[in-house]
């Protein structure tokens, strides 16, 4: 899973969000390292929706513009949990191997 996809799913894990909300949340989650642009975000949202990993929660009209809120589907939640567990296992191994190496220097 690409990092941008992982971060978008993570942003939606806490509740539904609209496009600009996802961009600001992804920036916060990644401590400013990942700055999603609109084209990339909506390509990813379109693909995630087609794969039934996210769905539209509700729509609002704000300042005469459409604001669409997205949320995770159960399949999206499961995929995110599996990916997070995979990354966590990798991190655990990396940290355990780094500890003795750090101790010898």
């Amino acid at each position, binding site marked *: 899973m690409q990092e941008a996809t992982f971060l978008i799913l993570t942003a939606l894990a806490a509740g539904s969000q609209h*496009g600009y909300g996802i961009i600001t949340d992804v920036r916060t989650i990644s401590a400013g390292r990942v700055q999603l642009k*609109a*084209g990339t975000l*909506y*390509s990813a949202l*379109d693909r995630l929706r087609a794969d039934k990993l996210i769905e539209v929660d509700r729509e609002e009209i704000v300042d005469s*513009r*459409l604001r669409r809120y997205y949320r995770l589907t159960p399949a999206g939640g499961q995929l995110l949990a599996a990916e997070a567990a995979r990354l966590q296992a990798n991190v655990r191994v990396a940290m355990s191997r780094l500890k003795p190496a750090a101790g010898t220097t």
Partner: protein
Amino acid sequence: MSHSVALERRYRRLLACYPRAFRREHEQEILAVLMAGAGDGQQRPRLGDAADLISNAIWMRLRPGVPRSQPTVFWAVRLMYVCAALRLLGVPILPAASGTSAYPLDAGISWGVFAVLAWANSRGHNWARVLFAVWVGFHSVALFYDIAHLSASSIPVSAVIASVVFWLVESSAVVLILSKPSRPYYRQKPAHP
């Protein structure tokens, strides 16, 4: 206010690069995001935003586009692209044709046919599904005819093996697109472009 009107007009021009169906679904949302992220007095799209919109629009028009929720069509289209790549690499469809002078032309044409049919199948066009099955059916008959007459000719065994492997790949794609789970994908309205 006139600044934002000019900026929005320019963003709309960039969004025109996207497939119509995608624009109908997301244009208002993307505009809202772009305008929310615009600076005070900004009249022109930022270079990074413009490049991002254009590159994603190109990718959206070219990508296979089959969702993973349709696994049979998803893998069939990938197998079709594998066929196109194999033809581009010179893998023969028919062992008897591999040594002839017409082979480079034949390889070029069939590469194009595989690529176009893969793209059209990924868009859910039913005519592409039928055409691909007929195209592979024609190959199957010609291949079995070649193999049946193998002893009478001096065709290298490697060309026969390559042709059979190629046939297995394209036949797998046919089985997948003709399978029951693939039917709903071809019944729905073709995707983006």
